[in-house]
């Protein structure tokens, strides 16, 4: 009935309009008169002093929905004017015909903004265009359902002046919408019945959600959603009595409490529970579990300050049944973080921690051991237990010597916490407070923690260069070009990676004396002979005394970029070796570089002249000592004998004197 009336009115209106128009045309202008000038592509005019094109495409105009109208139908101020008319026409008033839309628009946010003189505020032509207006059903129309998000997006896209400069309470509207089930339906699947912006916000009566007349006001939201989700209240009947849903929406959860605007996801909330329903009981501090009498009190403020402030209770505590008096009594499973953090969950299950949990090991750490529960904070929050400076303390809870993880451990990395704290990384993190310093999870990963023997482990020798390279990228690049890395696959001998020289938890500054001296032993673990012979030379002997000034392995060979001597790029290649010597011995020449830095006098084949020099000198030494020794050993007993003879001779001389003295003594005594 209503629609009939509408059509009737429209027809009547059109007839009247046509008649007046024709009447006017008698006096004034046909469209052809206007197009006489405006049909010319180069036609220009001025508006507020600016030169603009005043070309009107006749073809487009005649194809457009207003193609049947005359120019002066809209440009009413030109009616009866002489040609050529003056510049600066009055704005076209669409409301002449579209009065109801005009009225809604005027009251809307957009209309209010125009009234304030906001330059960014959209008027009719910003959405509908002017001469070539097409009906919404025409897919080429900017207001066709598929194009509306782009139309609104002109102003409401993140980063646009409107989003930046005006108070818009939602962010990433377009992105969120396009990812939502509505957006995916519309944009990906091309379902033109899927809601677009205007479906919820209306086309012209766009108002704040706080405005009671707004289609997205809390009171009205159910009505808005039920435009499409007809009888959705039937679905929710178990939650709320259907009729209350519309009548007393203010006391009941509205659609958006569970299905956030723009973000409506294809998530099945186990029958939407509002947090406040949970908090009715869990807000009480005395509430306890009937099974094990642990406290079931939940500090809701903690949740609201946590990373999960926008996550409702029932999203984690799934399986609630809202139709029960105690909706939570149907819960059988513990909170499974992986239902949202799926990827991390998979990583965790593969890790040693996860494997222990799968075995129901009492020592296995589960998510909450590290992340906490309701108060979970992001790792960038200094208060979080997973904040960089707190991680060593966190891991130490189990991995400190004597704690449950340390007692199970059978490897040879002992006192890891103490060692780490004293290491360069530990000092950087704990003493200097550098949060970019490597800590436990930087090397071991947070969720894929595996023993080094596991090839998937970040600390497996195969993966260590990449792990260290996350920070020490330059070193990794050098190392991967080095002989140690190049030999991979070419030798079955174990090749060194970062930790073999730098250790795992006792990493020291490389410019520390202790490290510089220690590194030679590290090289010597594989290069046994060459290290031994190095210690037979001056360089090695001084190093052995504990001084770092003489050349050590890396001074000549390089460290991370070490190459085979046969490689022309090596520091010790024929072309480079003199330069390498010159680093310390400024006057070094080609002959100087012929010094054998790893010489041994024990190898007659490799170094015959050293071998024979040594044995020549040794023979001289032994010969001299044999001669000298025999001479001395023969002499000693004879000299002792001579000494006794001399003493005897002395005694004989002194005897008479002594006798006299004794006699004297005897006399005086008497």
């Amino acid at each position: 009935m209503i629609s009939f009336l509408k059509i009737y009115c429209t027809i009547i209106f059109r007839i009247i309009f046509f008649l007046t128009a024709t009447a006017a045309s008698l006096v004034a202008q046909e469209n052809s008169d206007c197009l006489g000038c405006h049909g010319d592509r180069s036609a220009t005019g001025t508006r507020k002093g600016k030169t603009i094109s005043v070309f009107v495409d006749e073809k487009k105009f005649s194809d457009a929905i207003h193609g049947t109208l005359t120019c002066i139908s809209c440009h009413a101020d030109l009616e009866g004017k002489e040609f050529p008319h003056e510049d600066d026409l009055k704005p076209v008033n669409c409301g002449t015909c579209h009065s109801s839309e005009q009225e809604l628009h005027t009251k809307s946010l957009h209309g209010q903004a125009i009234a304030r003189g906001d330059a960014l505020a959209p008027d009719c032509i910003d959405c509908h265009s002017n001469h070539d207006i097409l009906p919404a059903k025409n897919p080429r129309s900017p207001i066709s359902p598929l194009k509306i998000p782009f139309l609104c997006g002109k102003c409401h896209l993140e980063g646009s002046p409107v989003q930046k400069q005006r108070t818009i309470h939602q962010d990433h509207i377009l992105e969120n919408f396009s990812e939502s089930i509505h957006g995916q339906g519309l944009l990906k699947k091309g379902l033109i019945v899927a809601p677009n912006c205007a479906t919820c916000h209306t086309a012209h009566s766009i108002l704040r959600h706080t405005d009671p007349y707004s289609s997205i006001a809390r009171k009205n939201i159910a009505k808005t959603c039920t435009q499409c989700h007809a009888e959705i209240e039937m679905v929710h009947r178990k939650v709320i009595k259907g009729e209350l849903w519309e009548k007393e929406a203010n006391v009941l959860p509205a659609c958006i409490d569970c299905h956030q605007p723009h973000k409506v996801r294809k998530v099945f909330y186990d029958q939407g529970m509002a947090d406040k329903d949970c908090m009715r009981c869990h807000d009480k501090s005395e509430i306890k579990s009937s099974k094990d009498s642990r406290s079931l009190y939940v500090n809701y403020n903690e949740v609201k300050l946590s990373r999960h402030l926008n996550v409702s209770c029932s999203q984690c505590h799934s399986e609630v049944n809202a139709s029960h008096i105690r909706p939570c009594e149907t819960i059988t499973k513990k909170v499974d973080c992986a239902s949202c953090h799926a990827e991390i969950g998979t990583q965790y299950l593969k890790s040693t921690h996860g494997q222990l949990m799968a075995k129901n090991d009492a020592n296995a750490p589960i998510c909450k051991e590290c992340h906490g529960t309701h108060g979970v904070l992001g790792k960038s929050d200094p208060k979080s237990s997973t904040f960089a400076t707190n991680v060593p303390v966190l891991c130490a809870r189990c991995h400190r010597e004597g704690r449950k993880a340390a007692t199970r451990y059978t490897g040879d990395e002992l006192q890891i916490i103490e060692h780490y704290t004293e290491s360069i990384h530990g000092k950087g993190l704990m003493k200097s407070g550098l949060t970019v310093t490597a800590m436990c999870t930087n090397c071991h990963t947070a969720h894929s923690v595996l023993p080094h023997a596991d090839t998937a482990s970040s600390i497996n020798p195969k993966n260590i260069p990449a792990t260290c390279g996350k920070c020490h990228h330059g070193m990794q690049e050098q190392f991967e070009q080095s002989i140690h890395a190049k030999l991979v696959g070419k030798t079955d001998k174990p090749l060194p990676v970062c930790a073999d020289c730098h250790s795992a938890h006792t990493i020291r500054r490389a410019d520390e004396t202790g490290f510089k001296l220690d590194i030679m032993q590290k090289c010597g673990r594989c290069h046994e002979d060459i290290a031994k012979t190095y210690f037979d030379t001056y360089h090695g002997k001084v190093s052995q005394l504990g001084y770092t000034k003489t050349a050590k392995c890396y001074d000549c060979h390089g460290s991370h970029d070490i190459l085979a001597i046969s490689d022309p790029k090596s520091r010790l290649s024929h072309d480079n070796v003199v330069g390498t010597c010159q680093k310390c011995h400024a006057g070094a020449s080609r002959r100087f570089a012929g010094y054998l830095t790893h010489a041994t006098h024990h190898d007659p084949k490799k170094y015959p002249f050293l071998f024979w020099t040594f044995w020549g000198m040794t023979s001289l030494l032994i010969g001299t000592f044999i001669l000298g020794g025999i001479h001395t050993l023969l002499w000693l007993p004879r000299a002792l004998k001579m000494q006794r003879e001399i003493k005897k001779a002395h005694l004989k001389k002194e005897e008479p004197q002594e006798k006299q003295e004794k006699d004297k003594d005897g006399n005086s005594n008497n």
Partner: protein
Amino acid sequence: MEIATTSTGEKEFLRFSRLNRILHILMIVSFISLALTGMTLKFSYTGWAVFLSHILGGFESAGIIHRFAAVVMFGIFFTHVYDLFRRKRTEFGSWKNLFLGPNTMLFTKNDLHDFTGSLKWFLNLGPRPQYGRWTYWEKFDYFAVFWGVFVIGSTGLMLWFPEIFTLILPGELINVATIIHSDEALLAVGFIFTVHFFNTHLRPEKFPMDIVIFTGRMTLEEFKQDKPREYNELLEKGKLEENLVEPYQPIVIRSVKIFGWIALSLGFSIIVWIVYAMIFAYR
């Protein structure tokens, strides 16, 4: 009072000139310094070497001490050579007199005779030879120093200035020089602190030390006993008297003995250390 006059009043035979005594004292200081600093490097794999190296102020200051002592040693050597030239001019008149005179440092037939005589005496097969001014073992020690200064000194210079030497010589010769320098030094140190110590200080008639090298003086009785041939020759020629001098004050003797003890103990310590390093820590 009577005793004091007899012990200080009795004139003593002057065996060593002032210059030779000074040179020998300098030689001791320089030799022990060279030995200590050099051995820390040679036996750097022992804890003792590390300890000593730190006491000496690190390898660099040990190196400075070593080079300084080496310069002193060269100085001693060249002073002695200069002194020979001087004495040739003033005392002997010609090289022939210096080299072929009765008190020559060169080995003579007589030394061979003394050597065989000594061996016989050691084995109770003959009397103690009538040793002259310089015995064959003293001459051996004297030439050992010439040999040592030449061998250790030349290789030492190569190690001190390798850049200069390798302008002409191949780099491997530095390795050779290292071996020669080090082993010849071991021989010198080992020989001086054992054989020389016994021959001059530790043999029973001199035990625990003979301070004649510091004072230059020995009692006539000791002179007669130790160098009977020289004593008799001087007596025959009536020249004994002109070689007699007043003995030193007891304070000088005591100081000299303290110095002697320090030198002896350092020498023995080095021997103990070398034996330890060679036997227990050799690599």
